[in-house]
């Protein structure tokens, strides 16, 4: 049993050591798996801000994941075919520069989260879950029926987008980019959680009436958290699309929303590194169980059911239970 902070250090060390070992042993597939884990972790960190800190059970985060993915897909496909996205009233061209794509992914998914959040936050509890799920599904059907960007078949991007000074097609360099982004976002989210904003958000989660009584505008607070949460998940979507060099409506599907939620639960709700552990475990299970049986989702379901029913606090909760000690 150990402190959560020490555990987090070990997790970070593993995220450096495992790909380093894979590089040494010349196993690029392991590096790709690790990249998937890091990107999923980033999506989970995004959702965890709304779900863990804010208590907003969003079952529609695939909307932002997909939005980020399509931001990359649309920009890169126009750059690939040398056609502008629009010419009037002003010219917008495609791009294959990662930083620009990330910025667009963050802004578009934040705007989308603002719209969906403003509508969904009029409700609470079960309504909120159902409404966010439904809005996520809306974009799934929209991308299927909109033929301009591949419709149901999705969009392929032939060359990975560029980052100044790096060769992004080299698996370890792309992993490095994703890992650094994850660390930056973890740092920022940690600061945010400890800021007055984060404390107020947590307070409103634990006791809404009390937060309102001390003069906190709970709705605005939650909307801001929801928008930041969506923006982070959108960034993860853009990276995921770049990893696969492919986007399709599947990125918007409700299963993705469910999986992002699974990362958080497996790792531990409202714990900074919860989604990181959860995503890594998910990828590991997918790899190990998926090798054992074609029907590995049955086992995943059983594990998830067990964690929900009997192991509250997820992996981090189990490993650091004794010394964190505040939860009784």
């Amino acid at each position, binding site marked *: 049993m150990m402190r959560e902070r020490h555990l987090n250090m070990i997790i970070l060390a593993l995220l450096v050591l495992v790909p380093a070992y894979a590089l040494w042993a010349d196993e690029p597939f392991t590096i790709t798996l690790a990249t998937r884990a890091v990107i999923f972790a980033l999506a989970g960190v995004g959702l965890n801000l709304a*779900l863990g800190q804010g208590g907003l*059970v969003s*079952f529609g985060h695939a909307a932002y994941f997909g939005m980020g993915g399509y931001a990359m897909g649309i920009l890169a496909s126009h750059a690939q075919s040398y056609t502008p996205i629009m010419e009037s009233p002003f010219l917008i061209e495609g791009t294959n520069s990662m930083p620009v794509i990330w910025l667009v992914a963050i802004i578009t998914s934040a705007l989308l989260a603002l719209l969906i959040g403003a*509508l*969904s936050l*009029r*409700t609470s*509890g*079960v*309504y909120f*879950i*159902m*409404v966010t*799920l*439904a*809005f996520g*599904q*809306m974009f799934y*059907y*929209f991308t*299927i*029926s*909109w*033929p*301009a960007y591949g419709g149901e078949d999705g969009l392929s991007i032939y060359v990975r987008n560029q980052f100044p000074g790096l060769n992004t097609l080299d698996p370890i360099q792309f992993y490095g980019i994703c890992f650094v982004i994850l660390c930056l976002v973890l740092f920022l989210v940690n600061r945010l959680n400890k800021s007055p904003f984060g404390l107020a958000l947590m307070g409103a989660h634990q006791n809404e009436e009390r937060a309102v009584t001390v003069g906190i505008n709970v709705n605005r607070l939650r909307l801001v958290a929801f928008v930041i949460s969506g923006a982070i998940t959108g960034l993860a979507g853009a990276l995921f699309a770049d990893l696969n060099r492919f986007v399709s409506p599947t990125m918007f599907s*409700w299963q993705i929303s*469910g999986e992002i*939620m*699974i990362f958080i*639960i497996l790792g531990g*709700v409202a714990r900074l590194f919860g989604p990181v552990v959860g995503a890594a475990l998910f990828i590991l299970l997918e790899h190990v169980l998926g090798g054992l049986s074609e*029907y*590995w*989702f*049955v086992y*995943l*379901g*059983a594990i*998830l*059911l067990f964690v*929900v*029913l009997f192991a509250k606090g997820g992996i981090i909760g189990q490993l650091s239970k004794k010394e964190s000690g505040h939860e009784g």
Partner: protein
Amino acid sequence: MDLLLLIEQILNGLQFGVMLFLMAAGLTLIFGVMGLINLAHGSLFMIGAFAAAAVAGWTGSFLLALIASLAAAAMVGALVEITVIRRLYDREHLDQVLATFALILIFSEGTRWIFGSFPLFLDIPAWLKGTISLPGGIQYSLYRLTIIGIGLVVAVGLFLLISKTRVGMRIRAGENDREMIGALGVDISALYTLVFALGAALAGLSGALVGAIQSVEVGMGEPVLILAFVVIVIGGIGSIKGALAGAILVGLTDTLGRTLLPVIFGAFMEPSAATTVGSALASMLIYILMAGVLIFRPTGLFGRA
């Protein structure tokens, strides 16, 4: 647009709505009485469809297939309630969502394991095949009309069950104050299992009825489940009347949107663009309807504030 075609589309919308009602009624009842959000309701829909397809394959009887769908879904529902769901009533919604999501994974992959990945087919029986002439010279599918009929009969039956019978009285009492009716000597856990099995049976029936129009495959339940959520958000949670109104509204909006929007856009756009924009917008129409209801009545049309 042709008036006859329009009427046919309205009937199609009604049929779709009635099917959504069978799903939404169970969900809303389970939420109203037990306070549980059940994502696995779509799996029960799928189980009903598979049970019907399997029994129809063995016996060739459509009636037996329908009975099998009711029985299988109710049995699986009761079993799941006793083993898993019962532990979730006092938990947060997040736990309920995750545990029932886990059940979806188990049921979907389990079904794939047993029946394989290829879709099954459930045939419309000979005595329900073909069309029927309605007043005004409209030819309409007898089977779809039958679904509308069954749905309305179930709606009336549910309404009578809840407002006129002893069980219904207990269900209503359970919605209002579950501790009190427990204290009055009603076996709450048996009541909960019963309500859950009833909701499951309705979902199973819905799956079997739809299975004869579409193919029966793994994953068929979840899109319907999400539409049923839209229905409940529009109708108001916990209200059977709201579920009926919401389901008909969603069914009509979706079906008519898909037919009419491309025509409407065609009036001022070139045909191919009109089809694209029209069908893309039609796929979003019910969610826009839901957003509208959320803006003006966040608790739904029949919801309690």
